[in-house]
């Protein structure tokens, strides 16, 4: 899992070459603006722009598509439910009553959420985790938070590995994970055992990091690139965020 997140984080691209500190700050501002958009034109433009960021990351389309499709599992239910639950501006399609306001809110919600997912993916998949955490450290995020993020990132892969091994163990003994009451108990056992085993492994990991002198401060050999090109990228991103905000809230809207 750890390797999966960072699989393409070192692939040469304008996004990957962007100084992680500027990238974090600029994308955080863009995220705040995207989350606050109220109008469909600005939200549509924001979503298109965020997907454009992913293209700048030169990440494989298939890799991105799989993750974007997975995100739809959370986004689509809202897109379907909101037009049915709002009451303003009723629209009748046969005997089905929809709401015009509900459709607008659903579309707005979907576009904003899609844009936020795309920005998060652009940040995480184009930045090696070590650089990302060092950037947060340099941006004065508390040391304990950064250290926790580093270890959580590592522990998640430990947990995922344990679950995967337990799943294999069940499969090799003829267990079928179909949803039926008889399967609940073994599945609950798997979750419990995987958590206990992960706890033991994370303890070993903690010993390993401490024995190599880790005290919470993250160091790395790579330096942040800096330079005018990175300032330009950050300025462009902040400019785009300001443009979206003006389009949404500025004079004349």
């Amino acid at each position, binding site marked *: 899992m750890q390797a999966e997140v960072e699989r393409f984080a070192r692939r040469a691209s304008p996004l990957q070459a962007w100084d992680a500190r500027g990238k974090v700050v600029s994308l955080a501002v863009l995220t705040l603006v995207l989350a606050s958009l109220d109008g469909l034109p600005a939200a549509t433009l924001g979503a298109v722009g965020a997907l454009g960021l992913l293209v700048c990351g030169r990440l494989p389309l298939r890799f991105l598509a799989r993750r974007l499709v997975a995100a739809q599992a959370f986004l689509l239910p809202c897109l379907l439910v909101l037009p049915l639950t709002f009451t303003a501006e009723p629209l009748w399609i046969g005997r089905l009553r929809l709401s015009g306001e509900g459709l607008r809110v659903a579309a707005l919600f979907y576009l904003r959420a899609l844009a936020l997912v795309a920005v998060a993916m652009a940040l995480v998949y184009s930045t090696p985790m*070590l650089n990302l955490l060092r950037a947060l450290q340099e941006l004065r995020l508390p040391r304990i938070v950064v250290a926790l993020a580093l270890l959580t990132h590592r522990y998640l892969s*430990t947990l995922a590995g344990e679950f995967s091994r337990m799943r294999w163990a069940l499969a090799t003994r003829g267990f079928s994970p179909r949803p039926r009451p008889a399967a609940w108990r073994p599945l609950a056992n798997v979750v419990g055992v995987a958590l206990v085993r992960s706890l033991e492994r994370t303890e070993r990991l903690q*010993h390993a990091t401490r024995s*190599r*002198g*880790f*005290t919470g401060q993250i160091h790395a*050999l790579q330096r942040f690139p800096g330079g005018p090109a990175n300032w330009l990228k950050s300025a462009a991103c902040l400019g785009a965020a300001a443009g979206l905000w003006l389009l949404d809230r500025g004079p004349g809207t």
Partner: protein
Amino acid sequence: MSCLVEVEHLHFRYPEGRAALGDLTFHLTHGERVGLIGPNGAGKTTLLLLLAGLLPEFSGSARVAGHDLQTRAGRQQVHRQLGIVFQHAEDQILHATVLDDVAFGPLNLGLPEAEVRRRVNAALASVGLDDTARDRVPFHLSAGEQRRVAIAGVVAMAPQVLLLDEPTSDLDPRGRRELVRILEGLPITRIISSHNLEFVLETCDRVLLLDEGRLVADGPVRRVLANEPLMLRHGLEVPACLSAEERHKATLAGPLPLPVPHVHPHPH
């Protein structure tokens, strides 16, 4: 020669009350290659964790390269002189590239970048990993290669003492031979905990036999491992590669004397 590791009357209990080590006394001098053997649950891993400064609550005395492990400062500084390679190498890997992972320890020591790079290069070379390995993802490597990355990560910190916990547990015969070759090239005082007694025979000169947390034998590796009654009594077997003559001589030689503590009693 001065002692690098001094352990005297060491007792350790786990927080739940289970006694893990009892009245352990031994000393190691510079350059010694010591095997730590014993049945499962003998306390081998606990002893290594304790020497690495990872287990704080114990009684007795333990010093590594002058660091008193009874003190918090001693436990926090001991990693500068002592490196430990854990049984499961993957648990030791933290970063997404070999380069970042091997550099992790030296960077934590606060060394300048040039020195870190020099040490990383030297450590990778010493474990037989070439330049192409630096940017590889350690989690995608074979168990043997992960073991080498873990050793390189510790060797890059230039410790005076190296602890290896079950280093052959996930290695095939070729990986094991490679590890023997790597260890031969590392002139560091070391303690190797292992159930693989042939491996201990190949890589160590002296052996400590633990059982139920107590030191039951301490002596030259061939003499201890060839002592069939002693080995059987403690749930072990004489390695097949030792000749019948050696077994006979070791058995006739009788039990090995344990080291006599020579320093002041501890306050606990």
